[in-house]
């Protein structure tokens, strides 16, 4: 009796693993197929604000680094802007000129870029930033950023790269997280960050931003 239950469980888990892997492979090939489809003019339009190598730019508003960003993260953000689940006045306008067909190709183009970080951030609290990034703040219920974003802050899958992100963008986005993102409801993936951003103080956010903004 026990053996057959075990076998059934094993078969089921193998089936699930296979499905997930196959699904993942399908998703990958969808990205690759569409990669060549983005018009050059549209890519150039993005770089007008985000920088010639998508390194980010600090204008009156801060335009974040897109270079080297995780493709799935970029795709999710573009969909969120299109569907108004992420509210941002500048990007809401940009979305009027973006179709869903363009999204995978744009994400691939940005992901492939690798300029050095823009830098220019303050450095007074870099050590604190590294400490929080690496070990979290257990007493404040803040997990180590590295646990999900990677020890090199390059991210993975839908979890964004933070390495080289603009200091002023990091401080901005972490401070207005729930006002801008996840407007579609609790199923939005950005809700995962809510408890963490709410448990961080302003100074801690600045420290983390100082640390990651210098990472290559």
């Amino acid at each position, binding site marked *: 009796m026990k053996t057959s239950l075990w076998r059934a469980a094993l078969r089921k888990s193998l089936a699930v693993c296979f499905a997930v892997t196959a699904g993942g492979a399908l998703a990958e090939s969808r990205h690759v197929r569409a990669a060549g489809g983005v018009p050059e*003019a*549209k890519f*150039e*339009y993005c*770089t*007008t*604000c985000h920088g*010639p190598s998508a390194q980010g*730019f*600090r*204008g*009156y*508003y801060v*335009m974040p680094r897109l270079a080297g960003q995780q493709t799935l993260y970029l795709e999710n953000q573009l969909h969120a802007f299109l569907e108004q689940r992420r509210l941002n006045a*500048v990007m809401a*306008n*940009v*979305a*009027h*000129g*973006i179709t869903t067909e363009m999204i995978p190709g744009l994400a691939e183009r940005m992901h492939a870029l690798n300029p050095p970080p823009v830098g220019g951030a303050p450095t007074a609290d870099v050590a604190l930033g590294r400490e929080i990034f690496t070990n979290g703040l257990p007493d404040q219920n803040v997990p180590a950023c590295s646990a999900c974003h990677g020890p090199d802050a390059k991210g993975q899958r839908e979890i964004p790269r933070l390495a080289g992100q603009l200091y002023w963008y990091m401080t901005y986005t972490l401070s207005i997280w729930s006002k801008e993102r996840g407007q579609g409801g609790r199923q939005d993936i950005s809700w995962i960050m809510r408890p963490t951003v709410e448990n961080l103080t302003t100074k801690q956010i600045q420290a983390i931003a100082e640390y990651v903004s210098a990472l290559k």
Partner: protein
Amino acid sequence: MRPIVTNLAAVALALVAVGPVLADELPIRNCTWCHGTSAQGLTVAPRLAGQREDYVVHQLQSFAAHKRDDFLAEKYMWSATANLDPDTARNLAAYFSSLTPRAAGDGESELVAEGRAIFENGVPTENIAACQACHGPEGQGVREIPRLGGLSYNYLKQRLEQWNEGHDALAAPMPKVAKSLSPNRIAALASFLSFVGGETAEK
């Protein structure tokens, strides 16, 4: 005799009241000669009052290095900055940026609505970026990005046309931005911006 003394006293008081730097310590007359006695701009010379300090410094450096190479820059500003030392340049920039800017208000009123739409939203379907992303919602600029609000219609139009012609290619991203703009849109933007009030000269 008394009226002359009173007038002289009034002028002296005015000069003292003008700002943190006394008018005769800085050679501002070398600038206001063309840019207008109140630095609000005069014919082709743009308003300097209320302009971003870092932007002014960069432009002065750019003129001196012959990087900003449009026709009027070469004709007037290259020689104007040939003997300008960095400290004086920075002090001049600080002085002019502290003055309250006035809007030129010399654009075409019928084009203002179209100009505002382009300034605030760009034209995303034609890959034209929204100017306010960098220049701010009131065209006020920030840090090294210039204040556009209230500059004269002709000056704004000329700058966009110059970038379209390939001048000053290092002023990224403006050459690319200008190339995306048609003459009608340039006129609309320049018209809208010429009316944008610049009462506050906050940094």
